[in-house]
């Protein structure tokens, strides 16, 4: 995995930081240790994958009681649930809503977090420490305290049932962590780059936009990943603030398969798989950056 080492900031961060702690060459690992490592990793991977595979498997069973007899699914596996969900439900409008909200949260949240992180990383303005501390404290707010007053605020701002309102709420929850992460990442980019930019006549914003952001791509990728996933998978806010069924996100729409009288578990499983796919795709796109992006963020903050 050479990819983990090719981070742009690496040139700057002292050379040693970029070089992974390679296996010590002189002392060879015993074959037994290698086998044990593989065994442990295979076991862990199986445990990690099993619930995901299991729900994909359940989604192949056509009847709503099939989840009780997983063994019987094998004989009659079909994709009929998928055609049902795609054709006979509001899946696509929920999906579109989720894409708008999660995409919007990613863009808005990462922009806010990046400018905040940059300001705190580079400028010793009055209150920068209190700001970071405040951001940390906002991570501690239990949803239960926030949700009712937020409802009132959104309703008085006429933002209930609107994409923008939900995007704002999600950005509020993702920005604190992303700002911490990105502040750590910006800290690894040498200040000399900023100074060079200023000498060449760029404004502070120009420096940030043209020089620093491109260098911080791995950090931004992780922040985007985190924001997207948070928004994509959130249930409580979405079900409280989105009132009309054509504004439901996937996570909310999913619940409509279970009513008091009707439990369509097989459709729920199918929708779950369909929800997980885009998230897995985003994950696949950014996973090369995850380790470097998080390292810098966590290691230096």
């Amino acid at each position, binding site marked *: *995995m050479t990819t983990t080492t090719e981070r742009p900031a690496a040139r700057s961060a002292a050379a040693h*930081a970029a*070089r*992974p*702690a390679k*296996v010590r060459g002189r*002392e060879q*690992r015993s074959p037994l240790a290698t086998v044990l490592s593989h065994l*442990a*990793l295979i076991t862990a*991977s199986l*445990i*990690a*994958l099993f619930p*995901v595979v299991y729900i994909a498997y359940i989604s192949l069973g056509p009847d709503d009681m099939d*989840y009780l007899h*997983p063994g019987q699914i094998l004989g009659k596996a079909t994709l009929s649930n998928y055609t049902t969900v795609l054709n006979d439900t509001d899946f696509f409008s929920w999906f579109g809503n989720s894409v708008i909200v999660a995409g919007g949260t990613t863009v808005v949240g990462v922009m*806010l977090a990046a400018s*905040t992180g940059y*300001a705190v990383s580079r400028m010793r*303005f*009055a209150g*920068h*420490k*209190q*700001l970071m501390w405040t951001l*940390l404290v906002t991570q*501690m*707010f*239990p*949803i*239960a*305290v*926030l949700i*009712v*007053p937020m409802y*009132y605020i959104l309703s008085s701002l006429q933002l209930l049932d609107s994409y923008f309102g939900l995007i704002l709420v999600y950005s*509020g929850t993702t*920005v*604190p*962590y992303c*700002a*911490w992460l990105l502040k750590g990442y910006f800290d690894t980019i040498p200040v000399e780059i900023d100074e060079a930019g200023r000498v060449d006549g760029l404004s*502070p914003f120009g420096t940030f936009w043209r020089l620093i952001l491109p260098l911080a791509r791995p950090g931004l990728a992780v922040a985007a990943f985190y924001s997207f*996933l948070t928004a*994509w*998978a959130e*249930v409580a806010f979405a079900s409280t603030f989105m009132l009309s069924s054509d504004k439901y996100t996937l*996570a909310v729409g999913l619940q409509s398969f279970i009513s008091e009288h009707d439990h369509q*578990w097989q459709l729920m*499983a199918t929708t*779950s798989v369909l929800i*997980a796919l885009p998230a897995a795709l985003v*994950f696949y796109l950014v*996973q090369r950056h995850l*380790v*470097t992006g*998080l*390292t810098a963020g966590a*290691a230096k903050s």
Partner: protein
Amino acid sequence: MAVAVQGAPGKSRRGREPRPGLVQRLKLSYSKYWYAYAMIAPVVIVLGVLVGYPLVRGVYLTLTDATSLNTGRQIGVNHIPDSFNFVGLHNYADVLWGPGSYDRFWSHFVWTIAWTAICVVLHYTIGLALALLLNQKLRGRGLYRMMLILPWAVPTFVTVFSWRLMLADGGAINGILGSVGLPEPGWLSDPLAQKAAAITVNTWVGVPFMMVSLLGGLQSIPAELYEAAEMDGASPWQRFRYVTLPGLRTVSSTVVLLGVIWTFNQFAVIFLLFGNGAPDAQILVTWAYRLGFGQMPRDYAQSATYGVLLLSLLIVFTSFYRRWLARNEQANG
């Protein structure tokens, strides 16, 4: 907090020209850093409106007897105004030592602390073990890493839903346990098994984040340190104890703090796993949610009181934790 921060720049400036007055310093700071303020302004506004105001409102509610019956609401065109009363600190007293406070608050409190401690320890140790394994030169390392991070990418409600099917009576877990002759507990109905199930699921959900962060930390430890340690004849355990662990200190302190905060407030896992059932397995956050939303009449005041108590617990913990870190830092040079 504020005192410590204000003190720091003052000290470093001592001995230079006399400090300008406060107003002038603010002006100077403003003209020098106006763009910094411009950059943080959106965040401050968004958080101020969406978090700051609700917090103030929440704290105010704790001092009243607000429920869904006496809170102002809109019915048709008629607006019914608030009719709840100010009751001072009554809610706090009632939650902390009112009648039945053990069953209502303290039992959940104890379980929340245990839940947080157990989960974070499991997250950290399993995450560290996997990170160490992945940090070796090993065939298929990239593939392993991808599979192990995957749980992070799957939305929580999807995985919890899957776990629910697996943990149900006659589900996959008990099927496996039964086939090797082990007892098959009622994971979703038996109080003790519920707690075990909740911890298992949350561990599964939380390990990937720890693993990735610690893997990043491991990769930033210079290889020279290991070489030097080996030259000095350090055993693998000694290398781990005296090179790896200190090298991970900054990463660890951050992820453990975040882990504690997130686990303490972990709403989704317990709520989605048990819904409104399982009174014993509810942690304080889900319990507060149930008071505020899961019952009729909704008890906003009590729910907010729980929220404020939770927040205070976390703030106290964090300040002690940071002070402890700072002291450790000094002790270790």
